[in-house]
């Protein structure tokens, strides 16, 4: 694996521009990804932890140590799984950057990004983990900055690096509290040291880890960088970031919360569920209102991460109530949804990338009718949209079904606060599923169907082969994960089994084709449902072909209700599509609308132009981050006044310091 990414990075750096350079970079990614996947499967299924110690490096804090256990292997596999399609996709996609940005830097950084991301789950001591973690943030920061000419890329990158750095600082604090009374900083010692921590300290460590890794995962109060950074990055990079990097936030939380601290009181789970629900609702609602395709996908990542956190929360809650079997199922369901989200979200980002590649614009109000120009991309995007909306045959539905079922035992439990919380979680889960379906009808319908709304959309051409292959792999992955739930779930449960009182004998998730909850609560078989759907469609098509009329299909203009010409401006745009929901959730959005109509000079009854502008309230930016920034700015102005320029003032500070210390000495001789 190291070899693969290493070759890719070095190759990209040395090789001159042009196809060869891109080729080496893509080859490096594919090779590294495959190696990573193989390693993770070997550990996940084989169960043997893979360790590698390099004491000479980083000798200041117990050397560079890697230990890949089952939990880490899952996330390593995730990186490997996505590296392959994104590498293949990136080969052609980067061609568009030929003249404008340095391909060598992009290729090298991408490989380094994948390398550091694969090594994060393997790290076995604090400094190695932080080194890889910050390396991942740094390389992805440079990747976001590839398109530095775009106006808001720099601001987006700035937000991103600032948020990840703050996250790192919090996680660092959490780790170091753990390491305070441990002899070395290896995770093994941390585990033993954590046992002797006071409950108050354990709670602070958990909260710090939640804040630190939550900011990387994009949980609501800390999600503001995600809708800015992902659209700014090249599409296959934002696919990797959205698909995998935010999952490493989940990994970090699991590593500290579950593995090192070994679970905690029930309110941890409740907090996670609350945050998850909030993220899911806010994510999907803001996704609905977006007109920029990639920002819509970024917000929907926030939503899906919210769903994953609801699963994690349920797991921690049950762990707190000692219902360990239900906890294991909830954790496995959350991980499975993370895996599925990685597959279909990166597919959607790659689709958006090929739309951007073809039309050079992401604004949905200027797209439309791309299904003619980009048939393959449209088909893959449709598969992705179906999966993310959680519709039956594909993997999105299966993981949402599992999340539903894993929440169910919570409703019956006796503990006072659990039942209402679970009901809230279930209703949020369902609401977000519905709104996601509406959102992706909008995303797919407005972008790909109907009449092209701009010349760029009209003459869009299909993406090159390698991009289609990349998307194809992911589309197949979506279908396969949907059907292979019966195999994947036990493997995930085994990954989590060892730590924190979770039962080691992993419960069965159904046999053969049908997937059933271990508590026997409900059974469902995704494969047979898919098969049934195909059979019935075939039958219906056959019946219609036999009995229906022989008339050939006549193509004519859309019914215009008396109107003669049908122009693209008469179509429903994405803002129009989302308008009913904006009105329904007006409390949250508080939309501001101003309509400026300038009439035709001759008569008031003819209109020259109408301009409709409507903004929605970005709650978190305005009421959480803006005051923070202004307060820091006010303090800095106050501190700046210290450096006022007068030598006398400077000397006065010096004398005051001296007299102060002297008085201190006199007053408190001890």
């Amino acid at each position, binding site marked *: 694996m190291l070899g693969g990414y290493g070759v890719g990075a070095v190759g990209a750096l040395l090789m001159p521009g042009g196809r060869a350079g891109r080729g080496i970079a893509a080859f490096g990614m594919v090779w590294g990804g495959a190696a990573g996947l193989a390693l993770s499967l070997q550990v996940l299924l084989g169960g043997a932890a893979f360790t590698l110690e390099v004491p000479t490096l980083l000798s200041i804090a117990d050397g560079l140590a890697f230990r890949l256990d089952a939990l880490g292997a899952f996330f390593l596999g995730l990186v490997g799984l996505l590296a392959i399609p994104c590498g293949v996709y990136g080969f052609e996609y980067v061609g568009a950057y030929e003249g404008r940005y340095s391909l060598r830097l992009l290729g090298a950084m991408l490989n380094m990004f994948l390398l550091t991301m694969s090594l994060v789950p393997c790290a076995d001591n604090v400094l190695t983990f932080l080194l890889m973690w910050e390396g991942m943030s740094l390389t992805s920061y440079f990747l976001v900055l590839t398109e530095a000419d775009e106006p808001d890329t720099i601001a987006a990158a700035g937000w991103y690096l600032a948020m990840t750095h703050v996250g790192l600082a919090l996680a660092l604090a959490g780790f170091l509290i753990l390491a305070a009374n441990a002899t070395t900083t290896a995770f093994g010692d941390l585990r033993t040291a954590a046992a002797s921590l006071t409950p108050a300290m354990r709670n602070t460590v958990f909260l710090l880890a939640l804040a630190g890794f939550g900011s990387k995962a994009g949980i609501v109060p800390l999600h503001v960088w995600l809708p800015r950074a992902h659209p700014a990055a090249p599409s296959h990079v934002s696919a990797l970031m959205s698909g995998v990097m935010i999952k490493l936030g989940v990994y970090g939380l699991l590593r500290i919360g579950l593995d090192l601290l070994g679970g905690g009181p029930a309110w941890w789970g409740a907090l996670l569920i609350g945050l998850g629900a909030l993220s899911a609702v806010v994510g999907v609602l803001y996704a609905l209102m977006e007109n920029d395709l990639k920002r819509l996908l970024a917000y929907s990542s926030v939503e899906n991460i919210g769903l994953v956190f609801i699963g994690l929360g349920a797991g921690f809650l049950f762990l707190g109530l000692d219902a360990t079997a239900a906890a294991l199922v909830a954790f496995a369901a959350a991980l499975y949804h993370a895996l599925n989200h990685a597959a279909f979200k990166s597919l959607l980002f790659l689709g958006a990338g090929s739309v951007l590649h073809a039309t050079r614009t992401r604004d949905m109000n200027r797209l439309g009718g791309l299904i003619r120009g980009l048939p393959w991309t449209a088909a893959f995007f449709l598969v992705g949209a179906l999966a993310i909306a959680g519709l039956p045959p594909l993997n999105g539905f299966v993981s949402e079904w599992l999340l539903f079922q894993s929440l169910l035992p919570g409703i019956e439990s006796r503990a006072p606060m659990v039942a209402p919380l679970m009901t809230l979680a279930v209703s949020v889960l369902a609401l977000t599923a519905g709104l996601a379906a509406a959102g992706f009808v909008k995303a797919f319908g407005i972008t790909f169907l109907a009449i092209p709304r701009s010349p760029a959309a009209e003459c869009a051409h299909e993406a090159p082969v390698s991009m289609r292959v990349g998307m194809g792999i992911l589309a197949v992955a979506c279908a396969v994960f949907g059907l292979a739930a019966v195999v994947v779930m036990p493997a995930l449960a085994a990954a989590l089994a060892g730590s924190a009182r979770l039962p080691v004998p992993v419960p069965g998730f159904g046999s053969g084709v049908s997937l059933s909850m271990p508590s026997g609560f409900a059974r469902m078989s995704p494969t047979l449902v898919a098969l049934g759907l195909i059979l019935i469609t075939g039958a219906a098509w056959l019946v219609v072909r036999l009995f229906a009329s022989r008339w050939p299909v006549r193509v004519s203009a859309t019914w215009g209700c008396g109107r003669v010409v049908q122009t693209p401006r008469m179509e429903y745009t994405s803002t129009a599509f989302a308008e009913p929901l904006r009105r329904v959730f007006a409390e949250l959005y508080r939309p501001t609308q101003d309509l400026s109509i300038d009439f035709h000079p001759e008569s008031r009854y003819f209109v020259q132009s109408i301009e409709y502008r409507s903004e929605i309230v970005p709650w978190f930016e305005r009421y959480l981050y803006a005051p923070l920034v202004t307060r820091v700015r006010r303090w800095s102005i106050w501190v*700046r006044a210290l450096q006022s*320029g007068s030598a006398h003032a400077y000397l006065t500070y010096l004398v005051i310091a001296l007299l102060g210390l002297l008085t201190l000495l006199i007053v408190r001789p001890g």
Partner: protein
Amino acid sequence: MDSLFSQLSVLGSSLVLLFGLILLWRRGISAYVGAFAAQSMVLSAVIAIVGYFGNDHELYWVAGTLFLLKGLVIPRLLRRMERRFAVEREMEPYVNTASSLVVSGLLVLFGYMVTRPLVGLSQLPTRAGMPLAMGLVLVSLFVVISRKKALTQVIGFLMLENGLALLAVLGTYGIPLIVELGVALDVLMGFLVMQIFVYRIHETFESIDVEQLNRLRY
């Protein structure tokens, strides 16, 4: 014998402190230069007395160099500078004369409190003068802060050096000779550099008022 010695040393150091206070009282720079010259001479006298009574003959050398250096050479250079800039009166300082005198009184008092452990510890007859030396150090610091003219600030700095030298002599009958000579050389070098800078300020700013030097901010 010791009582005469300690009385003489206390008299000397109080004279040195009084000359320091003149800076706060008078306005003209020539008065400052005169006060500094007189202060240096009294200081060298005190060193000579300590050398005589403490029968440490090296101190005579120290007294001699100090007298020559700070008593004659530096005042002459200062007067040349003063003639060059032809600036007679110190402009309105940050703190008017009355309150600056009150503040210097408080500083001397503070000097007493700070040096209380020193006086308690030392058995040398000259220990009584140490608080006065510390008082001079603090007063000269106050001079540097409150006066606007660059030249006055230089004189304040030189008085600070005098205060410290006095402190050294009274507390320990003088630090080892080599170090003492090194310090004297350093002070001279420091003064020469400051002199160059004052000339340069005068060239570029047409006045030696430090108040105008506030372009570099934030």
